[in-house]
């Protein structure tokens, strides 16, 4: 059978040392995605480095500026039910609770959620061509069953949609990913953390092999108290989104003062459009404004045979979510 060594790291330095020593090692925390992929033979690590023993990385700390520092090992459930998360960033709590199942959320960590793999039907299927799994082999999703695939940020090599819920919220909130590695600590803007496929769809994260995530910083954003997450899917639970919306809205009278808007499952990465947000800022908070922003959001979208509906669905969802937030803000 395919064997691997399990290394229990007690410190970040030990984990980094183990990663450095083993070029085909993987970190494991909750394992809710990695273990599945190992069973499928998509991930074939020689070493698993168990980081559950790393101290101090499993809590959520409220920052004085209204922000949060979320430890990489905090469970999805712990974050979702944390009162500061629920009060300051309801979109985050709602996004997590819309994902997976209770059992999975209890096991899954926040760091792991950032690193979860796509769920394109062809990715974990060895008989299919997939440039993420086997670079250069081709992409069977292009002309295959691509209803779940992305319409934004795609390339000729990959159209897999990013599957995470909470990452959509984190993208909207301009989170910062704190990592450490051989060359020390660094902070990565969330916008840069997930990579579009381009010519190298197998390169998915701004994260070196020797680096591990320590935490996710969510900067203070007072108006995010008026935020929400909407997930549209084929069944009510345990299904990936067809389209999801993470949005926050601040009004000044009848005018949009500030806004955040990210859309999930339409992009190869959690998607945000500065132009769409700019079109709303300073504009009257009306359905027309929101619809115009939605149109801008999807400029340049490239639908395939099965997933064109996502564009119209997302546009309607954007308008309705913004209308809902507007009512709550008044």
């Amino acid at each position, binding site marked *: *059978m395919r064997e691997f060594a399990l290394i229990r790291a007690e410190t970040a330095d030990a984990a980094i040392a183990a990663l450095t020593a083993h070029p085909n090692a993987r970190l494991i925390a909750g394992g809710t995605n990695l273990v599945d992929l190992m069973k499928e033979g998509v991930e074939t690590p020689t070493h698993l480095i168990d980081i559950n023993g790393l101290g101090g990385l499993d809590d959520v700390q409220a920052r004085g500026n209204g922000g949060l520092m979320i430890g990489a090992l905090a469970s999805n459930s712990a974050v979702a039910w944390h009162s500061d998360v629920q009060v300051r960033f309801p979109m985050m709590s709602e996004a997590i609770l819309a994902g997976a199942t209770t059992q999975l959320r209890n096991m899954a960590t926040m760091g792991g959620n950032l690193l979860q793999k796509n769920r394109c039907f062809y990715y974990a299927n060895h008989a299919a061509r997939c440039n993420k799994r086997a670079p250069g082999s081709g992409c069977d999703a292009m002309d295959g*069953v691509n209803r779940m695939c992305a319409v934004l940020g795609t390339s000729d090599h990959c159209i897999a949609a990013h599957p995470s819920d909470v990452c959509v919220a984190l993208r909207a909130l301009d989170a910062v990913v704190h990592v450490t590695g051989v060359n020390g600590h660094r902070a990565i803007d969330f916008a840069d953390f997930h990579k579009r496929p381009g010519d190298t769809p197998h390169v998915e994260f701004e994260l070196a092999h020797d680096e591990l995530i320590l935490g996710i910083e969510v900067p203070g954003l007072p108006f995010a108290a008026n935020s929400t997450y909407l997930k549209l899917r*084929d*069944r*009510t*639970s345990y299904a990936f989104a067809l389209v999801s919306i993470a949005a926050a809205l601040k009004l000044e009278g009848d005018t949009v003062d500030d806004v955040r808007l990210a859309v999930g499952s339409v992009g190869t990465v959690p998607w945000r459009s500065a132009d769409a947000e700019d079109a709303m800022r300073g504009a009257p908070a009306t359905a027309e404004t929101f619809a115009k922003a939605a149109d801008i959001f999807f400029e340049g979208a490239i639908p395939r045979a099965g997933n064109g509906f996502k564009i119209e669905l997302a546009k309607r969802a954007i308008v309705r979510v913004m209308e809902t937030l507007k009512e709550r803000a008044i």
Partner: protein
Amino acid sequence: MNLESKVIGKPVSRVDGRLKTTGTAQYSADQRPSEDRPMHAVLVKSGIPSGRITGFDLSAVQGMDGFVRFLSHLDGALIRSIKNPADGSFAAGEEYTPFESDRVDFVGQHIGLVVARALETAEAAAKAVVVKYEASTARIAFDSPDAEVRQPILYNTGEELQVSRGDVDAALAKATHTVQATYTTPIEHHNPIEPSATLAVWDGDHVTVYDATQGSVNDKNYVAFGMSLDPENVRVLNPFIGGGFGCKGFTWPHSLIAAAAARVLDAPVLLVLSRKDMYTSCGHRPYTEQEVTLAADTDGVLTATRHLTDSYRSPVGDHVEPCGLTTAMLYRCDNLEVAHNVRVLNRPSGTPLRSPGEAPGTFALESAMDELAEKLGMDPVELRRRNHTDIDQRNGRKWSSKHLLDCYDRGAERIGWARRRAPGTWREGKDLVGLGMATACYPGYRTPTQTRLTLDRDGTLHVAVAVQDIGTGLYTVLAQMVADRFRTSPDTVRVLIGDSDLPPGPLAGGSMTTASVAAAVDDACRVLSETLRARLVKIGKTLGNEPLVVDGGALRTGALSVPMTELIPTGSPAIAAEGGTNDIYGFAGGVETDKSFYSFGAIFAEVRIDRDYGIIRVPKMTGVFDVGRVINAKTARSQMLGGMTFGIGMALMEETFIDDKTGRFVNPSLGEYYVPVNADVHELDVEMLDIPDYDFNPFGARGLGEISNVGASAAIANAVYNATGIRVRHLPIRLDDLLEGLPR
């Protein structure tokens, strides 16, 4: 008969409930009958859809620690050449002999078996076997131009698949109102929670097979044939089955492969199919295209009906999805044509899946009826009433017991049918609301069944029959039937099933087990009663005509009460009786009768559809069923809830995608093949008319496992139309089917 029974019809809790809820029920893969730990086997499956195997490269496998053996067609004749026998002594899922030749007909076909000491080794080795092929042209796409097309004559029940009466074309030419449309249903899989599993243990020339099968007797006969044994030398045990829905009905190659491997290795071999294996190893419901044409006069009376079904089969599996059989019998219509075409494609084999034919067939027929009602400007229930008949349209026989009109009435009342409005006009908040309905029906089947009853000294009744409880509640139902006949509590009855050594009973399929055992149990109870009366007389008792009562430690009749210890003296064996019936109903070769036997029902659905997003919810479904006498109100209702939930899945979620280039299923996992979750299932409202059908068997029960799934998808599709004005003629119906046309 015994309508005042203290146990029949009561909501008796499952006698095996504790075993199941505490995890102590032993399923096939759990069994460890001997000290010898079983070897673990994993299938090697074809990666190409058509061609031949030119060799296996085992170099990566042979050095694996714990690897034991690789078996394939290169190992000589491990299994006797099989074709399904004309005498019906067994039914295999596929008409080919595993490991007989180098030929490959579909992706996933079993071409080799790895056996190892540990499951992990076997899995790794199975992946490491390199198969060399010579590929040949495969016909995978449904519209493959050169695929052979067959017109099969008979379904496996003996029912005619090509039916014609009257003159459809002439009637159509004269018709004032017609509907013609094509409906499609997707590939669907059974997805029982327990995968198929076989543990084979040999003892000399005798093999015991612990098999997750819906038919221990069928399994026994198939394994015996394949292993060249007398059937007495095969024992199949299946005390608990974790769902089947048809994929464990006929016996599939893996059962024989496991038995052959255990014989070759002279060691117990356990073969548990993976979830992925389950998608290609034991059937699926094939994709269907159905063209339905209906014509009616201005009163809504049908003047012509045509139902043409196009489906497919694998080169080695002869399943036909018999979508038009319902159409041929249900509504009064003198001009009718029902036809079934089957293309031969290089796809895995199909097999019955809960209500084969009826479920996809009524989606088409009952959608078309809804379209016709719309054209006529007539209430859909009224249209069905106007075409109601007391005569089976296929054979001119009267139904034994049909109360379908009552089902319509009760269902309409329970769902609040009067609330229904014109299509696309009922709005509540952001929702579009709609109501839809469909007729449900399913044949009454019975097959020969024998039963052994035993009364022992402590007053316990034992009932033994080679049937199986696939989760439906049969253990409990059997206990109730016996208890009823001896006026005792089900607690005093021990049920022995799930063992092919017991008196033979039917396969758990076609909703026929309860009706079949009902007749056999009744007969065995009669024989035991006569035996007991004779015994009482023999020991000097004077009897009246009052019924016998097993009352704890005594046998009572009238004023007489005889202690069991007197009836069965110390050292005497328990009193046994055998009874049964060889009668067949619903299948070819059945009993001569002037009646037709069917269950009927009416399904109503309310949907609420988000008018921006098109997301469909089903806040309420009502099913009213005429299924004969209900033996157990609780397990029967549970079956109906399951079937209606099945219907929600079929209507809104379930679909297996196939890649037309490679012949592979694209989403073979429970994460990617959606079935409803709890949050998708809201109020399921079930009523059973509970009218006994004593023409069918002495307990008056017909089957009810399948009918609750029939019509459900059409009821939901019709409700979607009523809510939105959008007619979706394919399943499943998803939000993207509605998005563009929603009346916002």
